[in-house]
């Protein structure tokens, strides 16, 4: 059986950079950061923390009557998913029975409805209440976002949730790619969402000593991937979605094809619960290249996982150099986390949305605020300014997680 080619027909994103895939890309290209002081409901304020928090009102896409069923993570998920669905042209006009039969949702999230859970605990343990909101379970469960997307899109095929920390949505996209390629579905709405900026969750991350120290004069400059001065990650919230389709499905309905998803590689470090292992990361990148049938010289841009932690960025620079050779041979590498923060379960999808747009616009977003690159890494990290008018034939997006899971996705120009 021949394998189906898988193409991308829609994108969606919401993050601290804004609403919409285009708005997110424009702001990333401009090197403009969405990071600022974290604002939490009083009295539990953490005034010295920064985050890539969505501080603008969310679009009103869910009926008021249905809001009790939604954690913030579900709202972010549906905002991104509905944008991708709309761009693909699948919403509304298409044969609904066919959609029901052969369409799925593969979605990633690290902590699902973390805010709902925390609100329930505060009610019980702090406020002394004897009960929690009745919809706490259906709003909190990790598959709530995927289920809501499936219902709203009318997709009745396989609906899966991937929860592997920071690679959750990269895995969701990669596994969706395989799902279509092997003929299990014609189309999958894939992506991820995360909304865990709560007092409890942020405190837990802080306790691990992995959060970046705040640049108090310029909070937006607090996340410094690949910098000599990097000292941690900045948490963020986001939703991001990609409409994947078999080439035959997209062509049959005359859809606009944005790009082709060419390869997916996955691996596990199998070494340490948090310390990243370059050998494991290398395996994922090699696997993705082999899957795409591309030599390493075929990749012109890598959107790095690089969250700004000392050990993480070091390991990734080493693994990229191992796979791609030295600075003159290796593709451009940038970390957009310098602007949208580490959105955990949404990170793989959000960064892949930006990677797809970099390919489409032949323009690479910068590693913002990188005025003092770590001299130990011999790579071009696209510091400070975007590179426009590039020749980008294919691009890779890396995602690496606590727990040791690694994923690399490759997108290339669609050529008939």
């Amino acid at each position, binding site marked *: 059986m021949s394998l189906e080619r898988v193409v991308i027909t829609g994108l969606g994103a919401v993050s601290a950079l804004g609403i919409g895939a285009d708005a997110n890309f424009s702001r990333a290209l401009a090197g403009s950061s969405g990071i600022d002081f974290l604002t939490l409901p009083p009295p539990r304020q953490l005034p010295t923390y920064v985050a890539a928090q969505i501080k603008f009102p969310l679009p009103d896409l869910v*009926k*008021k*009557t249905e809001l*009790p*069923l939604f954690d913030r993570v579900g709202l972010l998920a549906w905002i991104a998913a509905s944008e991708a669905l709309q761009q693909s042209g699948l919403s509304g006009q298409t044969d609904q029975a066919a959609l029901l039969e052969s369409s799925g949702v593969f979605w990633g999230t690290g902590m699902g409805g973390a805010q709902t859970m925390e609100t329930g605990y505060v009610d019980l343990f702090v406020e002394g209440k004897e009960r929690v*909101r009745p*919809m706490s379970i259906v709003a909190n469960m990790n598959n709530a976002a995927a289920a809501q997307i499936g219902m709203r899109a009318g997709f009745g095929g396989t609906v899966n949730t991937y929860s592997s920390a920071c690679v959750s949505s990269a895995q969701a996209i990669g596994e969706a790619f395989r799902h279509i390629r092997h003929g299990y579905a014609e189309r999958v709405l894939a992506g991820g969402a995360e909304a865990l900026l709560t007092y409890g969750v942020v405190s837990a991350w802080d306790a691990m000593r992995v959060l970046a120290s705040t640049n108090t004069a310029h909070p937006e400059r607090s996340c410094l991937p690949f910098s000599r001065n990097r000292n941690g990650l900045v948490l963020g919230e986001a939703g991001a979605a990609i409409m994947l389709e078999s080439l035959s499905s997209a062509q049959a309905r005359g859809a606009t094809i944005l790009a082709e998803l060419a390869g997916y590689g996955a691996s596990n470090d199998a070494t340490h619960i948090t310390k990243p292992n370059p050998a494991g990361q290398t395996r994922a990148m090699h696997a993705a290249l082999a899957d795409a049938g591309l030599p390493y010289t075929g990749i012109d841009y890598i959107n790095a996982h690089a969250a700004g932690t000392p050990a993480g960025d070091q390991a990734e620079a080493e693994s990229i150099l191992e796979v791609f050779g030295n600075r003159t041979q290796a593709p451009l590498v940038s970390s957009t986390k310098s602007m949208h923060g580490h959105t955990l379960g949404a990170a793989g999808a959000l960064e892949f949305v930006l990677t797809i747009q970099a390919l489409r616009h032949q323009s690479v977003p910068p590693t913002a605020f990188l005025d003092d690159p770590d001299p130990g890494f011999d790579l071009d990290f696209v510091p400070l300014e975007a590179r426009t008018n590039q020749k980008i034939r294919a691009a890779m997006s890396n995602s690496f997680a606590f727990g040791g899971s690694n994923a690399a996705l490759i997108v290339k120009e669609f050529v008939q």
Partner: protein
Amino acid sequence: MTSFPAVAKLLAERLDINIDTIQPDTRLESLGADSLTVIELIFDLEDEFDIKVGDERPDLVVVQDIADQIDRYLSQKAAQE
């Protein structure tokens, strides 16, 4: 006393509909109120009237059925005070 006005008010808010469309004999189903809506509504009514309906699960078909259930708890509460 009857809790019907409070039930109708909260139901209208929860379903985002005009309160005039809610009569005692209006079927919950016809308003678009499913079992989850009713559970949320009773949760809010418990707060509103400071009562505990607990795990009682009567068959609620029309709006007055909810008001009747709440009224029973209000009478019990009044008797205890």
